């Protein structure tokens, strides 16, 4: 019964089928089976946020989801968001504002930031901070990250006007 289980899901728009052990979490599945190493593994117990991905449109911790639970799900990783251009302005803002140094937290931070930009485009700094509160950064002190997200929010709402 601890044998591999077949799963089928969509990752960044492409159908994927695999045989996985029940204990394999989604982060390790993405990294080791699919080679999508942009999803980082930090604490492995849901605290740091480095493994944040989208599942069926919602951001989740990939370390707190089994690959077998992603059966039939649509998973989007940082590679998907990056390649599609969905967050190119946000990525540019991170670069402009020095919102990353070592980069370990950055994929998860971008996933969480894009989530609030999508759902609350008028978010203020306090709301941005709260939305990112589950993502740890040990380099920047967060200020530059909040700057980058806020700048992106303002630029997007300016364009929408």
């Amino acid at each position, binding site marked *: *019964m*601890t044998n591999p*289980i077949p799963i089928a899901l969509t990752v960044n728009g492409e159908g994927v089928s695999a045989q996985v*052990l*029940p*204990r394999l*979490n989604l982060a*390790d599945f993405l990294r080791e089976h699919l080679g999508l190493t942009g999803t980082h593994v930090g604490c*492995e*117990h*849901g605290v740091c*946020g480095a493994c*944040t991905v989208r599942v069926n449109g*919602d*951001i*989740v*911790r990939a*370390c*707190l*989801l*089994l690959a*077998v*639970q992603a*059966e039939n799900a649509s998973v989007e990783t940082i590679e998907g968001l990056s390649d599609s251009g969905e967050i190119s302005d946000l990525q540019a803002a991170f670069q402009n504002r020095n919102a990353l140094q070592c980069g370990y937290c950055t994929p998860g931070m971008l996933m*969480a930031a894009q*989530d*609030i930009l999508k759902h609350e485009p008028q978010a203020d700094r306090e709301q941005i901070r*709260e*939305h990112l*509160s*589950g*993502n740890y950064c040990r380099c920047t002190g967060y200020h530059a990250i909040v700057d980058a997200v806020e700048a992106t929010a303002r630029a997007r709402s300016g364009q929408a006007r």
Partner: protein
Amino acid sequence: MKASAFSYTRASSVIDALDLLALHGDQAKVLSGGQSLMPALNLRLSAPALLVDIGAISELRGISASNGVLRIGALIRHVDILRSPDIAEHAPLLTEAIAHVAHPAIRNKGTIGGSLAHADPASELPACTIALDATIVVRSKEGERRIHAADFFTGIYETVLSPEELLVAVEVPVKRPNSVHFFHEYARRKGDYAIVGLAASGILEGDVFADLRLGFFAVGDRALLAAASKHLTGKPVTASMLVDAQAALDAELDPQDDQQASAGMRRYLARQLTARCVATLLRRPDLETRPSA
């Protein structure tokens, strides 16, 4: 760390899940949203032989209000609670409290049934259910049990649930026109585990509490329904009544020392939360004064 090896099966219905739990007993663990179970597995604090995934059981979803009762299915996620107009109307304490539960990515997966069955003494929802006098509905192959929330939690991560039982729903009496509620927790940062928290629900008749239920969390081995509230009901609250309630509360609490706070700090904060709750609900800021000592 990585979880140790286990088997996995996806239950197709409540009946199916109950059959599996009856067969495997305490060798099995129920997997709901996994936001407490998965950390425990990854840290190898828990190593079940089998996970029974109930995530696809649609009959465990749903929020409905009828005959004065709001019923919330076990698989309702924290984010569903946050967004539910029915819950905001009939049990606004839950709407307010849920924003303090962890972070968006966790709230997108974590479920009310999972949180209650996990019974972390520092978590918000157990205290909310006891403050709201909720009924926790559990099923096994033998049938259904309906348990008062105040009787459900028995210790750190411990409840009256047997290994063969599945928590299927929570039922909350709907808010009355003169219902009032209060929620506050002290935490280092939003989303962190509370150092001390209070979920309260009451009935106000004029300026008198006809009823007041104080559900404290992170002050002992389980959510506590404080008997100290009896000092605050039935007549207009005076400063000395509040002092009596705080003293009674102090005698009821059994807080732990940990890296977040000493037991003494938790006792102090619990007394202060009591005062803040009463002052807020009665609109009597004079009652929330700092002790001189």
